C-alpha cells in the first residue's frame, strides 16, 4: 500500500518516550467522584438520582431525552453526596453529581454480556452502545450511537479505527493497542456487523511499531475484512479529515460529514469500549490517561475511573518535581490549560500534561511578516494570517467567507509562526464570533 499524505502539517518533537513502554496501571478511586452532566457533544444530561441515593457501579445517574446525548454512569458504588455546581476540566462551572465511593465496587445488573454480537440486530446494538454511555473518546466526545446511525442513503464503505495518536507526549491509545488488541479488533468486527458492506482499516502512525505488530499479529488469525494501515508520522494525522484523506484519498467538502464520503472514524479507545459494552456487558466506566510532562516525577499511563480528580492522577504519578507553569488536559497541540487540579476527568480526557516554564515559555506576539508559513502548514488549506487579521477587526462575516469555520484548531499555524502570533486562538475566537452572530440572527428572526 503506497503511503499518501495530506497537505501541510508539521513535525513537532514527538516526546513519546516518557510513557511509550509503560504498562497501563489501574487506579483505585478513593473518596468522592465528580460526574459533570456534559461529558459529550450535544445536549447535557439531567441527574436522575438525588442526594442520599445509593448507586452501584455502572448505574445510570444522569440522562437526556435528546438523541444527540449520552447517559452518564457511576464508576463506583456509594452514596450520592451532592448534586451541585463544580469546576470542570475546561474551567467552566457545571452541574455535577458527586458520589462518595464506599470502596465495595458493587455492580449494577443493568448490563448483560452478549458473547455473540452476531445474534443482535442493529437497533439492539445501538441501544446497548447508547446505554453504555459511549462517546468518541479521542477527545471530540461525539455520541457513538449517533455516529453509527448515518442517514440511510449514505453507504458506508470504510470504518476507520483511529490509532494515529499524533499528539506529542500521549500514549494512551498506543498502550491500549499494545496491551489490549483483541477488544479493538472485536469492536471493529461489531461495527462491520452493523455495516456489512464496509471495510475495516486500523490506521496507526509508524512511530508505534509495537502497536502495529501486535494488532497485525492478532489480525492474522482472523479472516475478516480488516487491515492495518501504518502511515507516515505527521501532525495532525489523527484529525478526522486528514485521516480519511490518507486512508481513502477523499476530501470531505466543507460542512459535510465523514459519512458523506462513506467513512466512519472511531478512536481505538471508543472501539474497544464498543466491544466491552456489547460482549462483556461493561459500560464506559474508565479510560486510559497518560500523565506526562517534564515536571511529572513518575510519568504513567493510568486506567482511571471517570470522575476521579486530576490531582489523584498526579499523586499516583509521584507528584510534581517542581511547580508546573502549565497543566494541560490533553496534549501540547490541542490540550486545554487547566485552572485547577481539583477537577474530575471525563470521557474525553486523554492526557494530563504538566510542563515547566522551560518547556512551555509564553512568548510575546510580534507583527505578522507575511512569510506564509501558517498557510503552508494549515492542513485545511486556510490562510491563518488573514483570518487572524479579520478576527482582530471583528469582521466575522469576512472571516466566514474566507473559510474560517473550516479551522480544525489543530495548532499547526501557531506552532509554525515565527512571529509567535496566537493564530489558532484567534481562529477559535472567530468561530465563536460567527456562531454568536448566527444565534443573534436566529433570535431576531424569531422575535419578528
Amino acid at each position, binding site marked *: 500500500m503506497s503511503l499518501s499524505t*495530506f*497537505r501541510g502539517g508539521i513535525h513537532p518533537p514527538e516526546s513519546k518516550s516518557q510513557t511509550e513502554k509503560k504498562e497501563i496501571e489501574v487506579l483505585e478511586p478513593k473518596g468522592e467522584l465528580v460526574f459533570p452532566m456534559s461529558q459529550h457533544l450535544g445536549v447535557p444530561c439531567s441527574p436522575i438520582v438525588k442526594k442520599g441515593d445509593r448507586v452501584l457501579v455502572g448505574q445510570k445517574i444522569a440522562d437526556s431525552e435528546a438523541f444527540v446525548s449520552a447517559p452518564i454512569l457511576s464508576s463506583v458504588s456509594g452514596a450520592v453526596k451532592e448534586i451541585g455546581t463544580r469546576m470542570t476540566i475546561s474551567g467552566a462551572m457545571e452541574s455535577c453529581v458527586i458520589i462518595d465511593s464506599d470502596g465495595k465496587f458493587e455492580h449494577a445488573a443493568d448490563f448483560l454480556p452478549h458473547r455473540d454480537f452476531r445474534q443482535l440486530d442493529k437497533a439492539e446494538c445501538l441501544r446497548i452502545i447508547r446505554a453504555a454511555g459511549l462517546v468518541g473518546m479521542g477527545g471530540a466526545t461525539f455520541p457513538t450511537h449517533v455516529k453509527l446511525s448515518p442517514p440511510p442513503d449514505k453507504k458506508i464503505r470504510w470504518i476507520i479505527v483511529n490509532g494515529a495518536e499524533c499528539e506529542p507526549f500521549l500514549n494512551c491509545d498506543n498502550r491500549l493497542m499494545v496491551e489490549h488488541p483483541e477488544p479493538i479488533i472485536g469492536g471493529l468486527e461489531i461495527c462491520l456487523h452493523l455495516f456489512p458492506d464496509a471495510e475495516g482499516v486500523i490506521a496507526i502512525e509508524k512511530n508505534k511499531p509495537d502497536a502495529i505488530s501486535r494488532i497485525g499479529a492478532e489480525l492474522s488469525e482472523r479472516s475478516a475484512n480488516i487491515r492495518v494501515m501504518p502511515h507516515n508520522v505527521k501532525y495532525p494525522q489523527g484529525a478526522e*479529515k486528514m485521516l480519511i*484523506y490518507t486512508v481513502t484519498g477523499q*476530501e*470531505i*467538502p*466543507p460542512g*459535510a460529514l465523514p459519512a458523506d464520503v462513506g467513512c466512519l472514524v472511531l478512536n481505538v479507545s471508543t472501539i474497544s469500549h464498543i466491544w466491552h459494552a456489547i460482549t462483556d456487558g461493561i459500560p464506559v466506566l474508565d479510560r486510559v490517561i497518560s500523565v506526562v510532562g517534564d515536571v511529572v516525577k513518575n510519568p504513567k499511563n493510568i486506567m482511571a475511573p471517570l470522575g476521579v480528580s486530576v490531582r489523584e492522577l498526579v499523586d499516583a504519578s509521584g507528584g510534581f518535581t517542581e511547580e508546573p507553569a502549565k497543566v494541560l488536559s490533553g496534549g501540547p497541540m490541542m490540550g486545554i490549560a487547566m485552572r485547577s487540579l481539583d477537577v474530575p476527568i471525563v470521557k474525553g480526557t486523554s492526557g494530563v500534561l504538566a510542563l515547566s516554564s522551560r518547556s512551555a515559555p509564553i512568548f510575546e506576539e*510580534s*507583527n*505578522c*511578516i*507575511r*512569510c*506564509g508559513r501558517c*498557510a503552508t502548514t*494549515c*492542513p*485545511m*488549506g*486556510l*490562510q491563518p*494570517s488573514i483570518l487572524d487579521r479579520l478576527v482582530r477587526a471583528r469582521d466575522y462575516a469576512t472571516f466566514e467567507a*474566507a*473559510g474560517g469555520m*473550516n479551522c480544525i484548531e489543530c495548532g499547526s499555524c501557531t506552532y509554525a509562526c515565527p*512571529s509567535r502570533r496566537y493564530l489558532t486562538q484567534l481562529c477559535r475566537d472567530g468561530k465563536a464570533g460567527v456562531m454568536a452572530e448566527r444565534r443573534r440572527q436566529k433570535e431576531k428572526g424569531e422575535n419578528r
Partner: protein
Amino acid sequence: MANVVLALVPAGIAGGYFFGSRAVLVMAVCIAACVVSEAVWQKLSGLKVAVSDLSAVLTGLLLAYNLPPSIPLWMAAVGGAFAIIIVKQFFGGLGQNIMNPALAGRAMMLICWPVAMTTWALNGISGATPLAVIKSGSGELPSLMDAFIGNIGGCIGETSAIALLIGGVYLIARGIISWRIPVVYIATVAVLSVITGRAGGPVLEILTGGLMLGAFFMATDYATSPMTPPGQIAFALGCGIIASLIRAFGGYPEGVSYSILIMNLAVPIIDRLTPTRILGEAKKNAGK
C-alpha cells in the same frame, strides 16, 4: 532575519574587495542610519524598541548594496532614514509596509540626486555599467567571467553574481525563501532578452545589473510579496516582464528596482486572486 543577513555576507565581501574601503563605509553608514531611525521612531512613538529583530540592519545592508560606492555618505544616511521612517514605520512597521523599504529608499535617492546615484567607478576609473553600455550602444562589454565574479562597474552589492548566488542558494536550502520568485524572475528576464534581441545575450543580461540581488533578496521580501505559490509565480513573472521592458525600451538602463516596486503594489490584488484551496472544496476557485 539573521539568516538573510548572513546570506548577504558573501556579496558584501565581494563589494569590499572590488570597491575598497569606501564601500564598507557606505554599508556602515546605511546600517547605522536605519537602526538609529528605527530606534528613535519606536522610542518617540511609544512602541517597543525592536531593533534586535535585525530587520533594520537588513534594510540598511540592502540599501547600501543598491548604492554606488562613491555616494556621499550624508545621502546614504538620508536614504536609510527615509526607508525606515517613511516607507516602513509610516505604514505600521515590520510586515506592514507595502513596498520594499530599501528599494523605495533607493528610488527616492535616484530622483533627488541622479548624478551621484549614477556615477560609477571601478579601481579608481570611472566608467559605465554593462547595462548602460548596452543602452547607449557605445563602449565595451565585460567578459562573462568578470560579470560572474563581479569585476564590473555597478552598485556595491549587485555586481558579484557568484556571491549573490551563494547567499541565495543558502536561503533556499534553509527553507527561508522558496525557489519560485528568483527562478521565475531570472528565467523571465533571460527569455525576454532573447526575444528583444539584447546585445549582450541572455547570460550577460542576467549576470549584470541588480537582477541577482533583486531576485534573491528584494523580490522575496515576505512583507511585499504574495503568500501563495501561484501568486509568487505571477509576481515574479510580472517583475521579469517589467524589468525587461525598462531595460529594452525605457529611459533607464536598469529596471529591476522599479519592477519590484511596481509589483509590490500589485501584491494585495495578487493575493486576492490566488487564494489557497480549502480542503474538500472543488478544485477550481481562483478568481472567485
